[in-house]
Each structure stands twice: as structure tokens, then as C-alpha cells.
């Protein structure tokens, strides 16, 4: 970038020099006389002719006015050509003054081309000198610049490579921001840091391999030890060598089978697992929709639900609420009282209907399978609803409790708060 600029400036200066020289060589044509100005002088002289006392020079030119006899009538300054002869020698312009058509005098216009040539020369020389000086300055500056920016950093690079060779990878290569070949030196530094990284990675890999081997050996040791212990017991109980071996093997196999059967057994016991409950996180604001869905007759007024994150299965919770509301619709009259409050570990939802409630004897059994309240005889149902609801709530780490409230049956649904189980 800088080099380009220096070259550009030098070229520019060279162009300037050429221009100056060219101007001097080619532009040196004879300079013309201002004919209009001369005409003005001539015209004013003719106007003023008989009496030149009042004549004023209307221009910046120097001139002398002679009468026909060669006597000086008017001159703008001293040391001008005052006779036709000296005017001819000086290459001055000589014009006839003809007021009213007759030649009455002569106008000698001073020739200034010698002076203008001189001044032109001087300007040219001065300009050239200036440009040359500037050129010299730029060259010297650029040489110094190159020395500082290229030669010196190379010395630095030499020291750096020495360090690398000796295995010292910690000291980074100092980079000057003015450095011309920053990217170049940078790659050296990248090389250093990459080398360093590679060394570190190698050491780390070695260490972790060792750890893995140690851990595995420990893990394998334990089952091997237990197998060994079992076979030792078998050997102690039986004197027969062959029987000893078989005995221990049989016990091990039986244990395995036992475990498998136990697993199978526990799985079979849980006959209700087909109603899978997959609780997850649920925004308490979603509860509102669930309640609205369940209370399709709009018997209850929706209470404000405190903001919290619930731990529940949305589908199952909906079923629980459906069930409670359906029961209320079946056994009671509107309205349904609904409230929600935050407890330590849960959000408790209290749903109380205006029915007759359940008799105290039946209350403990109401959540059991196929149990129905005595007042439910006339109403259809299998008596499974509350049982399943209770199961759902338990699976969601919550509870469902039923009691007789002030107005009717009071169901309390406690939904666990996420992260508080």
C-alpha cells in the first residue's frame, strides 16, 4: 500500500518535472501583443490628439508618443525607446497616429518579451528545484522506512526462530503493527502456537488413556471377585470336585433366571401401566384452558391461577378434571366453587360442588375400584373414574383427595410443582 503510494507520488513528481520542462521548451512561443489594448491606446490618443496634456494611459502598457518630427510628446516612463531608430533596435511596435485620417504622429509600444522570457526561466528553474528536492526527500525517507520496517523485523525473526529451535514455544513473536509483512510473521507465530497445542494435546491423550485402563480394570475386578467368592462357597459345601463346579454354575444360572422372572413379575403386576402417564413441565397458565375444557357448562368461575411451572401430564390432568367436573354435573347443581393456591410443593386446586356429598362411611372407599356412592344408583357409571383419577394424580407426583365440604363434595387436586418433587 505504502509502496504503491510512494511510487505514485514519485511518478506524479516525474510527470510534474516533464510538464515543467515541456512547458519551458514548447510553450516558449512568442507572446502576442494585446491588440485590443493597443487599439484603445491608439483611439484615446487620436481623441486627445491636438493636446496630449490631458492624455492618461488607459492601459498597463508602456509607450512613447512622437510627433512627425521625432519629438517626444508623451511617455509613460523613462528609459523607453524615444526614437524610431532605438525602437527598431529594441523590436518595439511602431504605429501611426491618424486623427481625422491624416498621419500626425507615431506611437512606440515598448517590447517586453525579453523580460517575460527571463521571468519564465526563473519560474521554471525554481519549480524544477522544488520538485527535485521533494523527490530526493521522498527517496531518502523511503529508504529509511524500508530499513526500519523490513530489515529490523527480520533480525527479530531470527531470534524467534532460534528460540523455537531450542524448544521454547512459550514466547510469542512480538509483532509490530506497522510491520510490512505482518501476515508473514503471523504465520510464524501460528506455527509456534500450533506446535505448542499439538504437544499439549499429545500429553493429554496419553494421560486419559491411562485413566480409562485403570477404571476398567477396577470395574472388571468386582464381578470377577464375586464369581470367585461364589465358587469358593460351592467348593466348601461339596467335596466332589466336579459337583462343586456344577453346583456353583447352577446357582448362578438360577439367580439369573430368578432376576429375570422377578422382572417379568413386577411388570405383570403393574396391570395398569398401559394407561401410561408421562408427566412433564407445564406452564400454569395452560391450566386455565384445561379447566375451561372440563367445565363446558360453565358452572364455575375461573379463579386466578398463580404463575408457576407444573409437573403434570396434560392429557391425564385433563381427564382428572373432566372426571371431577362430570361427577359434579351428575350429582350436584350449579354453581361449582373453584379456587387455586400455591402450596409448598404443589399447586392445589379446590373444586367444591353444591351436591349432597358422600356419606362419611363411604368416603374412605370412594377412590377404590368399582366403588360407587350410595346416591349413585340411579346414575350410570362403572365406578372407575375416581380410582383412575387418583392413579393419574399419583403418577404425576400429585394427590387427589376428597372430603365433604361446607356445600357438597370437595375435591382437592394437588399438582406437583416442577422441580419440587
Amino acid at each position, binding site marked *: 500500500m505504502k509502496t504503491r503510494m510512494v511510487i505514485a507520488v514519485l511518478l506524479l513528481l516525474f510527470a510534474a518535472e516533464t510538464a515543467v520542462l515541456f512547458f519551458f521548451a514548447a510553450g516558449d512561443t512568442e507572446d502576442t501583443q494585446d491588440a485590443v489594448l493597443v487599439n484603445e491606446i491608439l483611439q484615446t490618443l487620436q481623441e486627445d490628439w491636438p493636446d496630449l496634456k490631458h492624455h492618461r494611459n488607459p492601459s498597463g502598457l508602456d509607450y512613447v508618443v512622437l510627433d512627425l518630427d521625432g519629438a517626444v510628446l508623451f511617455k509613460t516612463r523613462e528609459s523607453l525607446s524615444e526614437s524610431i531608430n532605438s525602437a527598431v533596435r529594441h523590436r518595439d511596435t511602431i504605429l501611426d497616429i491618424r486623427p481625422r485620417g491624416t498621419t500626425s504622429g507615431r506611437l512606440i509600444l515598448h517590447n517586453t518579451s525579453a523580460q517575460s522570457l527571463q521571468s519564465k526561466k526563473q519560474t521554471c528553474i525554481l519549480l524544477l528545484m522544488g520538485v527535485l528536492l521533494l523527490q530526493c526527500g521522498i527517496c531518502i525517507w523511503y529508504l529509511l522506512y524500508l530499513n526500519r520496517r523490513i530489515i529490523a523485523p527480520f533480525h527479530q525473526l531470527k531470534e524467534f526462530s532460534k528460540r523455537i529451535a531450542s524448544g521454547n514455544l512459550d514466547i510469542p513473536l512480538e509483532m509490530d503493527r506497522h510491520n510490512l509483512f505482518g501476515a508473514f510473521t503471523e504465520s510464524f507465530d501460528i506455527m509456534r502456537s500450533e506446535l505448542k497445542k499439538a504437544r499439549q494435546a499429545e500429553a493429554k491423550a496419553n494421560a486419559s488413556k491411562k485413566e480409562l485402563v485403570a477404571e476398567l480394570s477396577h470395574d472388571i475386578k468386582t464381578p470377577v471377585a464375586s464369581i470367585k467368592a461364589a465358587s469358593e462357597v460351592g467348593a466348601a459345601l461339596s467335596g466332589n470336585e466336579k459337583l462343586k463346579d456344577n453346583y456353583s454354575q447352577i446357582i448362578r444360572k438360577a439367580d439369573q433366571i430368578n432376576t429375570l422372572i422377578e422382572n417379568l413379575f413386577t411388570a405383570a403386576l403393574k396391570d395398569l401401566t398401559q394407561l401410561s402417564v408421562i408427566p412433564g413441565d407445564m406452564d400454569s397458565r395452560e391450566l386455565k384452558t384445561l379447566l375451561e375444557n372440563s367445565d363446558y357448562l360453565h358452572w364455575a368461575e375461573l379463579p386466578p391461577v398463580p404463575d408457576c*411451572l407444573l409437573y403434570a401430564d396434560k392429557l391425564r390432568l385433563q381427564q382428572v378434571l373432566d372426571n371431577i367436573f362430570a361427577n359434579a354435573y351428575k350429582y350436584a347443581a350449579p354453581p361449582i366453587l373453584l379456587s387455586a393456591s400455591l402450596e409448598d410443593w404443589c399447586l392445589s386446586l379446590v373444586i367444591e360442588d353444591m351436591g349432597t356429598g358422600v356419606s362419611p362411611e363411604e368416603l374412605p372407599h370412594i377412590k377404590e375400584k368399582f366403588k360407587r356412592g350410595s346416591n349413585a344408583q340411579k346414575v350410570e357409571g362403572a365406578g372407575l373414574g375416581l380410582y383412575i383419577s387418583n392413579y393419574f394424580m399419583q403418577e404425576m407426583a400429585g394427590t387427589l383427595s376428597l372430603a365433604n365440604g361446607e356445600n357438597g363434595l370437595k375435591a382437592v387436586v394437588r399438582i406437583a410443582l416442577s422441580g419440587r418433587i
Partner: protein
Amino acid sequence: MKHVLLKTDGLSKSFSSGGALQHVLKNIDLELYEGDFTVIMGASGAGKSTLLYALSGMDTPTLGIITFGGTVISSLNQDSLALFRRKHCGFVFQQIYLIDGMSVMDNVLSAGLLLCSDKKALLEKAGKLFEAVKLPPETQNKFPTQISGGEAQRAGIVRALINQPEILFADEPTGALNSKTGLDVLGTLTAFNQQGQSVVMVTHDMRSALRGNRILYLKDGVILGECHLGVYTPDDTARHETLAAFLSEMGW
């Protein structure tokens, strides 16, 4: 009884990713005390950083309330949060996040000048902090790309502390550093904490966690447990064992 700086009530944070709602923080009730070096630990994906950014007003929670002093910050708008952060919080990021286009000093000053217009006092303060983190003056005028990660992170700490925040939040400050420079950074944080600076740091690195006097273990968006350690002293084997026991109990 320590003074409570920051308090959360039922803090939950959810993100929707690809249409499915993901709950990262779940009903977190937490109090942070003045002068504590609180460490939030947990496996990756446990919600550590989310918690940190919610606490620091960088992000607004989905549910719940966060109170700082007497102000509820969880309901502030973005600009008010920015004002809150500039005044009360300092941040140290895992990726350091210095602005590449500015020199180290300017990075620090750009934060400092937001609150303090007395340039001289500010420069003095910055100078002291730089000294405290052992950054020499020539580094201060370099650009972030020209200095090492450890130096950059220490500059990050200076930037975080320039406005004398009540709490310094650090998100795995040693995560992007090698072990030696990481130790330097931890040492700096410990030193500031021992001068009374409250620090909240997220880490999944036990060596970093040792620095704290209160360790919270976060799992699946829930604080599973916490462990209190005494004042940090180097090479305290008992402290190490206590922490190790706590972590293994937590399933670390």
C-alpha cells in the same frame, strides 16, 4: 444474617425450539447474599447459563419474579434492563466478548463512561483495576486480537468491575482458557470476592467451583442441592473433599 441482594420466586424459563416448548428453569426460589461467591454448577444443559442470564437481567424469565433490592426486575423492558445492568451488574463471559474494534482500555472505558463522566477519576479507577488483575499498561493499549485469552479475560473482568457493580456475574470465565491462565483469572475473582465483591459464577469445572463459598447444584432446571464452604484458602484438602462428596451425592 447476610443481606439478600437478589431474590427469585418461582423463576421459570421456557424456550420454544422447533415448535416444542422446552422448560429450562423450573420454579426456582433462590436468594443470593451480599459478599458471597456463589457458584452454580451442573452438567451442560442443566440451565446454568440461562439462570445466570435471567438473574442478571440479560433475559426476562417466562414465569416468576426476580427482585433486586426493592425493584422487581423481571418485568422491566429492554431499555430499563440495560440501565439496570449498567448500574448493578458486571459480566464476565466465557467467550470474553471484548469488542475487537477497540483497544483494551477503550473496551473498559466504554463501559465506565456510561455512568461516570469524570474521565480522570475513571482512568485512575481503571488503572487500579488493571493493576489488580496484573495487566501491564502496554497491554491496555493493544487490541483484543493482539493479546492472549487470559489477558483478554482479565481485561473483561476489569470492564465488568469498572462501574463497581453490586454483583459480578461470570459465565464459565475459564471455559475458553488453558489451565494456567484459567487459574490466574480465578485468582483474580477470588481476590475481588475477598475484598467484598459479590460474585455469581457458572461453571462445570470443579477446580473453579472450589473458589466459591456457596455451591448450588442445578439439574434439569432445578436446584438439586447446595453446599456451603468456608473462606477459600489454597490447597485446602478438606474443602476439596467436602465439595467432592457433595457433588457425588448430586450425581456429578
